[in-house]
């Protein structure tokens, strides 16, 4: 990989990581009439983006500071980029999974005969650019701008199918996400700026100073923390979770990458960043409010799992599972033990790899066998063995069992909760894991072990396996889950660096 | 003595205003407004603002009263009482307003006090002492209006122009291809039945127009100028219209011509300014118009006063024409309608109208 170091400087890489998805989007629009060239360019843009992020990762490993100021429209609203471990982790996950999802989407969209594929790929690329910009934001203000950009760029994807349900879902989507971000998150951002005079992400936090100076009370800071936890509604903490099941009307690649990885993780990422770099772990620990918020998140974990059990629609079940898993990360952030925060960071990656595999599987079932409901899946594993095998691995990762990466992150989370002395949270995590065994593992079990329906009830028509691009993508992401189990060191180092004060 | 006159006039104004508020008959209110203007004009004369008094008398008493009457003729004279709540609000606002104004006058220098800032400021001295020498114009008001603050006057002319265009745009008639059928009684206007009025008033029109020209030209030496002249000229035309009917008047001076004259007056005024720029001076710096700056000033002032006069006269005439034509159409249509109704109901056309 040495050629990458020589080939471009880190500043160029940073800009290129943001620009290449946009360039990809432009290319996609330009090449719209020729589907092969269009999809190819999207794929190439994905690979280039990933290489750029990789270059940044190498620079960070080497200890180079990676930061850049872009422009400042009004005082206090500074658009600046700065790479730190957590952001890098997030960017790595998003940029690695993008080309894989593109690969999957090519097969899926063609098999599904979707219309407006050009628009689809273009907005997909724009969203990725916004996600990377969010991951690299140096301060809360530019993070907020990127946050909103993501909402807007994904809106056309949610309403892609252009029918009544899609538009209704789009309304809920936009209403909840915009409402909370403008009403709560923006207020929080401005509050931080007013209190601390800056919104820059600083190791150790920026709000400890004003508290020590007596400029602000703990209660106010508690309210501020609440503004962030609920304002970042992309994290889907109840009661602002309804947009996520609604957004499942989007095509599966969108649900897979955006609503399991990029967009929702943008929400928890925001909360993690705020807790670690704005408040600082020590400060949050002193706030009474964090306990309260902890219980809200814990409730979300359990409640979402319970709801997921009752959902027959596969994608909805996965969506509620996502809601639960996101709250794991929020819990990890709010527990403010170093282990739990590390676990939360790691869970971003582990859950991403696992959940995207599950969605890929669900999408493959939809386009190949036209099955939407769990109850229809009896015995389907015999026709689509690869799909269902990958699905099983993904499920294991979400549950937190070896041989998948989910095990490490969940272990760290539970350890952190235990050390922080929050017994009920440990219990909640365990209950939710047990429930996820029920609602997730039951699916591959059903697919492989139950007999296919008899002739009277309607035999599976012989439809063969999923499109080959889909299969490749699934194998890759399932492999990633296993890889995270075998070699978690690199990511673990990153999350450890996040909680350690930088020299 | 002067104070006594002031007080009496002000008391008059107050009581007239009160009466105008109280009366339920809009016709009386219109008349009261006319009287109010007349007394204001008298007050201006007492205050030595003869130029203003002239305009006030012509516009306030003459033109606007006629306009109000024309409007009333097509709407009716009676007013229904307004809900009491609104009146309380209006009263409260008026009381606050009046209180603020009184409060504002508490620290004001007394009327005519030589120590007032208005008199002690250097520009007052400039206007009274330097200006006559500089300009060579005995009437102090004219150079102030037309030169020192000539740009304001250009603006005021533009306001008058806007008013004219506005009336044209809102109630000005489209030049119809199919004019309304004229009811027989309207053909000759109303004047036939008022022979005395007609004969006497006809004699008055030429002196009025002549006087307008005098006021126009005499602005440098006595009270007068474009505004006053324009208003007086228009009053003369208005009298003609009242006597002979708007149709006749429209044939004497066509509305299209008036419309172009409105624009022409403002253009003359602004054109002088542009010429000044071309001559190398500032906008409206008349001194560039001739070799001798004083001559230039005179030329400039005369020209712009002419522009003002044309625009004002044309605008006021246009407004009156438009209103009168509007009313005429209104009344005529109503009469036609009623007559048709009466024809249907009765055989004798004489008894229905």
């Amino acid at each position, binding site marked *: 990989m040495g050629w990458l170091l020589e080939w471009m400087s880190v500043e160029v890489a940073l800009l290129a990581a943001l620009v290449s998805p946009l360039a990809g989007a432009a290319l996609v629009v330009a090449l719209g009439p020729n589907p092969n060239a269009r999809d190819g360019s999207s794929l190439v843009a994905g690979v280039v983006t990933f290489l750029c992020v990789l270059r940044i990762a190498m620079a960070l490993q080497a200890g180079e500071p990676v930061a850049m100021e872009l422009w400042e429209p009004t005082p206090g*609203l500074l658009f600046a980029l700065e790479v730190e471990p957590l952001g890098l982790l997030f960017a790595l996950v998003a940029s690695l999974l993008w080309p894989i999802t593109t690969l999957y989407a090519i097969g899926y969209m063609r098999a599904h005969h979707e219309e407006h594929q050009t628009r689809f790929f273009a907005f997909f690329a724009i969203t990725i650019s916004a996600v990377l910009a969010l991951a690299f934001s140096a301060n809360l203000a530019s993070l907020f701008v990127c946050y909103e950009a993501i909402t807007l760029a994904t809106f056309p994807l949610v309403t892609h199918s252009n029918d009544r349900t899609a538009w209704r879902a789009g309304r809920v989507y936009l209403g909840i996400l915009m409402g909370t971000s403008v009403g709560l998150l923006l207020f929080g951002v401005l509050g931080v700026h007013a209190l601390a005079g800056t919104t820059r992400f600083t190791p150790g936090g920026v709000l400890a100073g004003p508290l020590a100076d007596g400029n602000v009370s703990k209660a106010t800071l508690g309210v501020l923390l609440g503004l962030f936890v609920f304002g970042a509604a992309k994290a889907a903490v109840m009661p602002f979770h309804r947009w996520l099941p609604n957004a499942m009307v989007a095509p599966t690649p969108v649900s897979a990458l955006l609503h399991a990885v990029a967009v929702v993780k943008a929400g928890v990422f925001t909360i993690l960043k705020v807790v670690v770099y704005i408040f600082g772990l020590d400060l949050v620990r002193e706030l009474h409010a964090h306990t309260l918020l902890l219980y809200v998140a814990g409730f979300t974990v359990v409640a979402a799992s319970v709801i997921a059990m009752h959902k027959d629609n596969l994608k909805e079940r996965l969506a509620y599972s996502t809601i639960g898993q996101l709250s794991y990360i929020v819990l990890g952030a709010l527990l403010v033990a170093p282990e739990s925060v590390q676990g939360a960071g790691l869970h971003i990656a582990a859950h991403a790899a696992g959940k995207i595999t599950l969605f890929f599987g669900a999408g493959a079932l939809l386009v190949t066998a036209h099955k939407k409901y769990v109850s229809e899946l009896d015995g389907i594993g015999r026709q689509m063995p690869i799909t269902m095998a990958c699905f099983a691995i993904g499920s294991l990762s979400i549950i937190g069992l070896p041989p998948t990466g989910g095990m490490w992150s969940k272990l760290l989370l539970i350890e952190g909760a235990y050390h922080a002395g929050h017994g009920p949270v440990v219990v909640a995590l365990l209950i939710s894991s047990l429930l996820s065994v029920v609602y997730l593992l039951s699916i591959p079990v059903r697919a492989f072990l139950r007999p296919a329906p008899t002739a009277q009830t309607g035999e599976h028509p012989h439809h063969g396996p999923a499109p080959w691009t889909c299969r490749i993508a699934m194998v890759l992401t399932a492999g990633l889950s296993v890889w995270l189990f075998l070699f978690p060191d690199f990511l673990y180092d990153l999350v450890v660096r996040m909680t350690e004060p930088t020299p | 003595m002067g104070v006594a006159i002031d007080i009496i006039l002000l008391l008059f104004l107050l009581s007239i205003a009160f009466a105008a508020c109280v009366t339920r008959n809009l016709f009386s209110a219109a008349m009261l407004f006319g009287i109010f203007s007349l007394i204001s004009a008298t007050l201006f004369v007492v205050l030595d603002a003869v130029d203003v008094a002239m305009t006030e008398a012509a516009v306030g008493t003459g033109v606007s009263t006629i306009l109000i009457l024309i409007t009333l003729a097509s709407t009716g004279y009676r007013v229904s009482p307004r809900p009491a709540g609104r009146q309380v609000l209006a009263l409260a606002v008026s009381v606050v307003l009046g209180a603020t104004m009184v409060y*504002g006058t*508490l620290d004001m220098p007394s009327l005519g006090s030589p120590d007032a800032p208005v008199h002690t400021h250097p520009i007052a001295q400039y206007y009274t002492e330097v200006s006559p020498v500089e300009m060579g114009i005995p009437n102090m008001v004219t150079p102030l209006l037309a030169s020192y603050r000539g740009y304001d006057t250009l603006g005021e002319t533009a306001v008058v*122009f806007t008013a004219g*265009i506005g009336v044209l745009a809102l109630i000005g008639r489209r030049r119809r291809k199919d004019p309304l059928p004229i009811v027989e009684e309207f053909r000759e206007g109303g004047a036939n039945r008022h022979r005395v009025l007609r004969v006497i008033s006809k004699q008055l029109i030429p002196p009025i127009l002549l006087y307008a020209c005098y006021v126009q030209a005499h602005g440098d030496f006595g009270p007068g100028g474009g505004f006053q002249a324009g208003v007086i000229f228009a009053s003369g035309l208005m009298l003609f219209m009242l006597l002979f009917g708007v149709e006749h008047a429209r044939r004497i001076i066509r509305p299209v011509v008036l419309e172009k004259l409105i624009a022409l007056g403002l*253009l003359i005024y602004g054109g002088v300014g542009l010429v000044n720029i071309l001559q190398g001076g500032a906008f409206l710096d008349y001194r560039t118009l001739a070799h001798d700056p004083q001559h230039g000033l005179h030329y400039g002032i005369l020209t712009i006063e002419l522009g003002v006069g044309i625009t004002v006269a044309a605008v006021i005439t246009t407004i009156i024409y438009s209103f009168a034509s509007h009313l005429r159409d209104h009344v005529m249509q109503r009469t036609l309608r009623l007559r048709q109704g009466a024809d249907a109901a009765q055989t004798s056309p004489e008894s229905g109208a």
Partner: protein
Amino acid sequence: MIAEHAIILVVVLPLLVAPLCVLLGRGTLAWGAATLAVWSSFGLALHLLGRVLEEGVLRYQLGGWAPPVGIEYRLDLAGALVMTIVTAIGAVVLPYSFASVRREIDEHRHAWFYACLLLCFAGLLGITVTGDAFNLFVSLEISSLATYVLVSIGRDRRALTAAFRYLLLGTVGATFYLIGVGFLYQMTGTLNMEDMARILTEARPDGLGPVHSTKTVRAALAFLTVGTFLKIALFPLHVWLPNVYAYAPSVVSAFLSATATKVAILVLLRVFYTVDGKATPFDALPIADTMVPLAIVGALVASFVAIYQRDVKRLLAYSSIAQVGYMAIGIGLATQAGLAASLLHMINHAIMKGTLFLAVGCIVYRVGQTRLEGLRGVGREMPLTSTALVLGGLSLIGVPLTAGFVSKWALLQAVLADSHWIVAALILLSSLLSILYVGQVIHVLLLRKRPPGAAPIQEAPLWMVLPTLVLAIGNLWFGIASDQAAEVSRQAAEFLIREVAP
């Protein structure tokens, strides 16, 4: 020569082309002349803005008489900024007006319409550039009178009553201004703003403290402030505005909403800073204490009312009242940051409201009405127009990367810098309400289906869509590359505040 006289030509050109339009008489010719005049004004305004940025305040002696004997034109940065807004909007609106006016106004009135548009334009420009308190009133009258005509010149009968109401209240406002100027003249003996400001700080001739502490000056300020509040439609003096914007012809709505209130706010700044600056009106009168609460209540109430509007133009009009509230908050804070935020929001609001009203005008051109239920699904068949509408709407909400966000951000920062937490929260609440009403419009236009059997609709003519799109892209441009605008408004605010400092 043109550079030397640019400052006067920018106003006088449109003022004199107005009678020319009447002389030309024909609609098309008048349109051509008006377009030329407005575009040259735009060019001159840009030139002037550049020069003000370089050289500072520009002065021009009208009639060659040195102030305070004569009238002085005096262009500072705030004036140049507003002048650029007005001319830019004019330059965009005029090409648009050709088709729109033909559709909405009777043909024999076209020349008069363009004459009035130019007069209104010239009057607004005159306000931005004048350094004389009475000349400001004259310009105000020209623009107001022309506005009343413009509003009522269309075919909508309801516009007549709206214009009449506006005329009554507008005249009250102008009269208040005049009374205020009269009082000030009584106490200073001059009409030149700078001269007034100087004399106000001097000791009174009778030795009783400075002039600005007299009751007369206080009453004058009260009159000037209230009169101007009427003109900027600050709650609760906003009652004239909704119907005026709703029933006026599309071009007029767009032009007025983007310019008139901005210029009125400049008048307020002139009163507060240029005339009474050194005496700091914020100390003498409880301006901040009344203005900020009024503005915030206005923003909330207007946003709330906007949600329930069934007519797009009325909805946008109420949103204008809310936005004016934001600007008033910035001024009421009486800090440099607040002032800069207000000025910035002025620019951005001009762009976004211009976009929205122009886009609605495009729809009116094709559909002929603005009731929401009549517009179901129209946006789908007019993609360019609805793109502009969506961009403008997002900007109005204050979505990041649009112009509206930058200024709202600046405003919130200024508010929080003074730790007015509640005000900030209420501003955000009003933004949330704006999501609702903008969302409603977009929902009806784009998401609802056209009623069965409705006639197919085309995109509006190119000459209407292009200007709309230009402004719509302005929303993005000023959201992404807003540093220049922000810098100019910051400097303008700094200049105004510095005038206060001795």
